[in-house]
């Protein structure tokens, strides 16, 4: 906006406009952090203290870790289940997305734009429009009736995990493909072209050139996709259904945690919310830049 000197001067000088600016920024911080702050404070209070003290102020005599103990014991199996499908589905959808973006961007054939249009539209389709066929499809496939569950001695409810892997992979492909495409479009075409002229096949060019160069974008896509899949409730709800199921993901249990407990135990709910959000919060704190990139594209 101005030269470097002016900028430096502007940064360190004190004038009313700058003060107003930082007050606004501070006000925004309060706005964005207040729900989280009251959540932290409340999760550390006994039910009595929740009723008697201010929601934004910690309470010393009403301090307890019981909420977290309960929340962890209730949610831990769900977190394991969520990981069981979120990790494979994240990796698969990222790989398929990269393949698709490569085959639709860095190779030469007509009709790529048409296919891409279908992919972009696929990102935006409300999932309600596919839910009934999806459950029909899986009930016809009957994954839970396969003998393999009995052979392995695993609860056949875990068929729901397999279904969730397939589902999240399929519905994750469009967004992953578009993210990779925006990256591949900026990639140097000369390098690829010279490789192809040297006789490298499409497959070889991907393995030797495109895939290694995709590492930064894989970070973005994997982080974005993991957050999306971990946070999802809808597919878990219609495919696993019961929060009492052995395969119930963490979001399903958390949504039920409120309903099964008496509605007033906010301390437990807040603790549960933080426990369930822990992996995505960790990912966000560690890889905030990549997350922002995934969001912005």
């Amino acid at each position, binding site marked *: *906006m101005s030269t470097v000197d002016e900028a430096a001067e*502007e*940064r360190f000088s004190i004038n009313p406009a700058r003060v107003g600016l930082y007050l606004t*920024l501070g006000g*925004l*911080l309060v*706005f*964005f952090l*207040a*729900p*989280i702050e*009251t*959540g932290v404070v409340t999760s550390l209070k006994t039910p009595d203290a929740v009723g008697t003290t*201010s*929601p934004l102020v910690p309470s010393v005599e009403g301090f307890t870790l019981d909420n977290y103990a309960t929340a962890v014991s209730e949610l831990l199996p769900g977190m394991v289940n969520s990981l069981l499908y979120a990790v494979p589905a994240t990796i698969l959808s990222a790989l*398929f997305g990269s*393949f*698709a973006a*490569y*085959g*639709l961007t860095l*190779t*030469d*054939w*007509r*009709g790529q734009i048409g296919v891409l*249009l*279908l*992919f972009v*539209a696929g990102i*935006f389709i*409300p999932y*309600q*429009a*596919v*839910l*009934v*066929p*999806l459950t029909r499809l899986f009930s016809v496939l009957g994954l839970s009736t396969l003998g393999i569950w009995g052979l392995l001695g695993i609860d056949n409810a875990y068929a729901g995990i397999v279904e969730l892997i397939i589902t999240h992979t*399929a*519905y994750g492909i469009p967004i992953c*493909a578009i993210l990779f495409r925006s990256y591949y479009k900026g990639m140097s075409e000369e390098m690829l072209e010279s490789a192809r002229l040297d006789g490298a096949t*499409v497959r070889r060019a*991907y393995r030797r050139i495109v895939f290694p160069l995709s590492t930064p974008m894989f970070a973005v896509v994997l982080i974005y996709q993991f957050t999306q899949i971990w*946070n999802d*409730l*809808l597919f878990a709800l219609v495919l696993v259904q019961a929060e009492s199921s052995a395969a119930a993901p963490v*979001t399903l249990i958390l*949504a039920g945690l*409120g309903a099964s407990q008496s509605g007033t135990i906010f301390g437990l709910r807040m603790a549960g*919310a933080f426990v*369930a*959000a822990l992996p995505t*919060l960790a990912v*966000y704190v560690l890889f*905030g830049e990549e*997350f*922002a990139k995934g*969001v*912005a594209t």
Partner: protein
Amino acid sequence: MATFSEVRELLKRVARTDDGDTTSDSETATDAGSATGDEVATDGGTTRSDGSATTDEPRIDGSEVATDGGEVKTDGGVQQSDGGLRATLEDRVGEDFLESAPFWLPPVLLVGLFVYGAVLWNAVISLTDYEGFDDPDYFDLDFDMYVQALTSSQVIDAGVNTLVLMVGFTVVALVFGLLIAVVVDRNIRFENTFRTIYLLPMSLSFVVTAQFWLWMYDYDGVLNNSLGLLGLGPFEFIGNQQIVLASVVFALVWQFSGYTMVVYLAALRAIPTEHFEAARVDGASVVKMYWRVIVPQLKSATVSASVVLMVFSLKAFDFLFALVGGYRPPNGADILATKMVREAFQNQNWAYGSAIAILLFLMALSVIGPYLYYEYTNDNL
């Protein structure tokens, strides 16, 4: 698969008629030869099953480009059409079409089946009377479910709520996000920290943020406590059906304005510095400068952000479900997404739910369709 082999046959026939062209065109022949060995071998296999080809195994390998092209001419007949098939196909569609198929075809098939196949299947189910635990009867199709849905006051209300939520949330989140972006863009210290915190809610699940806001909106929660200091309230933010939708919009804006901020920030940074300078030299006030010079340049960012926000609002199901921990959202906050899931998965009215889903889908399409057209005509895809 049936259609695929049909296409193949068709292409073969086309290739035969084009024989003269392809054989004389040495470059196309080279292209055909340089393709991977296994694919060519498959082609050889199918030709042999026609009964007309002979044992020319080494040549089909395709490793020796020059001899391949050469021998095609002398051999004539079937081999010619085989090389011609590839050549013609690649001539028509592009040289990498078949070779890159292993990359794009599996994802395209998955998306085709799970997204587009499922939407079509859903449309068919919506025409049946499918309910309960029976199987759908695909031979008795009519529009009964749509008549029932469009005459139901519940569905109409849910539709209106969906629209209000969609428009209200999108507009407020856009304006608020733009304001934050403008503030953050003013050469501030600790910019990364501010940005990271503003974007934080976006990384949280709807299920998690619903818990936070349930507590924020509670009788003993932060909002009623703060308003109480001003001598206002207490309000039933969730319980009062006049304001529950506004409460939901407010919570969603909290979660997503960080997203609009990031989008607008990127767009603001892309505007050349001279534009800011020019406005400043003209003596325009800051507000005027942004309004006249900067805002018009944010059009494409606004378009893509609004589409994403609208779609998120159509997906607000997770938030509403988690808010009450059940299929029935608070009175006054029922949207088509929650109504659809409730009818289908709680009441087992599968066909009815599917019909509502199609209505929702059409609403989404009326947003996505123009957007895709806009992006396509602007060459942004």
